[in-house]
């Protein structure tokens, strides 16, 4: 953590920006895959500083945003049961399901708790043997290993009252789906560094070759992102399309072998629906049959819940990079972080929320939202 300042150094940033400005000769569209990168780009104003020829398209990389509505509805149904203690990371509590969110379930008497690790949920299960403890296991390859380890531990320790509602997603199939779309404008990818720190970079050369796009593994601090952009632009300008690791301080080519072994043991690949996009084949993980008795969907019989998205929400196009958040007619009017139509306006890593929170000066809306002052 002591390096944070170094990776936000304005002088070094200026040098990287100068290099990008000097290199670019024509328009390029890059997609940053990860929501953490989107948040960092908007928060630090990085997109304002890049040459106008370099367009950053915000990809479907926020785990909160892409969790399907019907999974949220399953979570609400389980969390409402009196015997359940429902544990979740904090930012899932505000994601709207059909008509309500987990905060409201809590206000109605449901036992919903914010935890910082799935192991906290396992501890709660041990301390409450008379209750059913359910952990909401969502996210990309970054959060999947600790979740897998927790289920593994529950089995090993014989903690029967612990189960997990799993909706994990995988990045490479999403890149493949985006690149296969006829309307795709993406010419290069900034791959999510933390995903690669677990999975390595082995899945990317084939994608880079097949779609002829540079893929640059990129970190999250401002200088990391600028370096990722710099390397991607250089490749594009030279007509190259290789996999390049610009985040070597955290990413080994082979990834984290122990984490991958844990994933292999506990999860199996499945087709997964992405909120706003639809089903992407092979893009998710579910608990393997060996761990089925810790699968909350089966334990609480919520597999049958089916839900449709609100028609006004165009988050699918935003998540695919086809639409900038402020180009949606509902942005800032019908749809604000306070009254979100879709998950991209809920999560602080969602592209719509990031634009709304940080960019309202550049993006005049038809009605300026005036919120009242709090009494502190």
């Amino acid at each position, binding site marked *: *953590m002591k390096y*944070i300042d170094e990776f936000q150094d304005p002088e070094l940033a200026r040098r990287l920006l100068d290099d990008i400005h000097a290199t670019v000769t024509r328009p390029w569209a890059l997609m940053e895959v990860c929501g953490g990168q989107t948040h960092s780009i908007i928060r630090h*104003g990085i997109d304002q*500083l890049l040459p106008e020829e370099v367009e950053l398209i915000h990809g479907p990389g926020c785990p909160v945003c892409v969790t399907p509505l019907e999974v949220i509805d399953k979570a609400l149904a389980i969390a409402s049961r009196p015997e359940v203690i429902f544990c979740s990371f904090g930012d899932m509590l505000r994601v709207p399901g059909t008509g309500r969110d987990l905060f409201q379930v809590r206000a109605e008497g449901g036992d919903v708790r914010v935890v910082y690790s799935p192991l906290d949920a396992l501890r709660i299960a041990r301390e409450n043997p008379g209750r059913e403890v359910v952990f909401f296991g969502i996210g990309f390859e970054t959060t999947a290993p600790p979740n897998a380890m927790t289920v593994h531990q529950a089995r090993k320790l014989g903690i029967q009252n612990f189960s997990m509602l799993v909706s994990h997603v995988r990045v490479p199939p999403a890149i493949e789906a985006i690149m296969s779309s006829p309307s795709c404008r993406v010419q290069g990818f900034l791959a999510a560094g933390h995903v690669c720190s677990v999975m390595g970079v082995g899945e990317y050369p084939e994608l880079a070759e097949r779609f002829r796009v540079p893929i640059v593994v990129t970190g999250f601090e401002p200088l990391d992102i600028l370096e990722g952009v710099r390397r991607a632009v250089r490749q594009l300008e030279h007509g190259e399309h290789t996999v390049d690791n610009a985040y070597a301080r955290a990413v080994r080519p082979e990834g984290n072998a122990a984490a991958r072994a844990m994933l292999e043991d506990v999860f199996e690949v499945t087709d997964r629906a992405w909120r706003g996009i639809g089903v992407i084949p092979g893009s998710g993980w579910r608990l393997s049959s060996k761990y089925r008795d810790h699968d909350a969907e089966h334990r609480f019989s919520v597999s049958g819940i089916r839900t449709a998205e609100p028609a006004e929400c165009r988050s699918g196009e935003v998540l695919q990079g086809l639409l900038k958040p402020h180009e949606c007619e509902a942005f800032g009017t019908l749809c604000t972080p306070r009254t979100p139509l879709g998950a991209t306006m809920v999560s602080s890593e969602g592209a719509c929320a990031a634009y709304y929170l940080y960019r309202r000066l550049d993006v005049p809306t038809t009605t300026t939202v005036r919120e009242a002052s709090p009494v502190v």
Partner: protein
Amino acid sequence: MSDTTLPTLDVEGWTCPAPLRDRPRVVMGHGGGGVLSAELVQQIFAPAFGGEVLAQMGDAAVLSLGGARLAFSTDSYVVRPLFFPGGSIGDLAVNGTVNDLAMSGARAAYLSCGFILEEGVELDVVTRVSQALGTAARAAGVEVATGDTKVVETGHGDGIYINTAGIGLVPAGVDLRPQRVVPGDVVIVSGAIGVHGVAVMSVREGLEFGVEIKSDCAALGGLVDAMLAVTPDLHVLRDPTRGGLAATLNEIAQASGTGVVIRERDVPVPPAVANACAILGLDPMYIANEGKLVAFVPREHADAVLEAMRAHPLGADSVIIGETVEAHPGMVVARTGLGGTRVVDLPIGEQLPRIC
């Protein structure tokens, strides 16, 4: 004008019919100091209570009584755990209310103290909290003049809740209100932000951040006196508690109709707080403080006020973080370290730790 007589509208007692959006019940965000809290006050409490003084909507009400200008404030304390690094609920119950009075320029004179005790809480804990409260009161130069005790059944409270109310005299010539802020004012913060919130979180959630982070809980009356000694013409003071620095700056921007610009690199965030926030995906700008103040000062007095603040132990790390402008009225904008800009918005409810 036509001859048609227009109907006379009776707006006495009229209240906005709009319900609190989408929320049939209270959620934790209604207590978070952000948008939901404001709606609760503006849509339910203020219409029900009425009154001109309440409409001031300051940390403390300033009212005239028997020829004197009094500042009057109340606050309830429901912190968990009761004891945390750097303080306790007893310290907070004094300093929080004393500081609300100080932000109107008043030195707190008397406090009331209401205890709501949960059945089963150990008397030793009650004793320790009371002693902390008494010690804090003596340090702040305020007397606990009246009190009350209630006991609720087991399971109906977190051991101890405390409500304190305070009164103090506002000196002549002092008029601290956000409406006095004008473009060109200088924004000063009295030291590191986010410390109290992270200290409480570290104990509450059992999180370790490598170094112990102690709450900055302190009574700010002396610091305010030192500032007023330089000039009574400060425009507004606020202690950025719930909702943090971001909520306070937004509140003042909106109430004054000016824009606020801050330089992100000048906002003092200690490394331990920055690291804790980076781990949890939180923004230090929204984390609660209990011993800091934000001052909006006329430019011509800014250097002298800053010097006086730095000469006081509770203001040693004071720093200018920005200024007010005519552009983007009601909005707070941060200039980022890299040279970009972003809006700093009001929090909606509670800040939530991010997943990754």
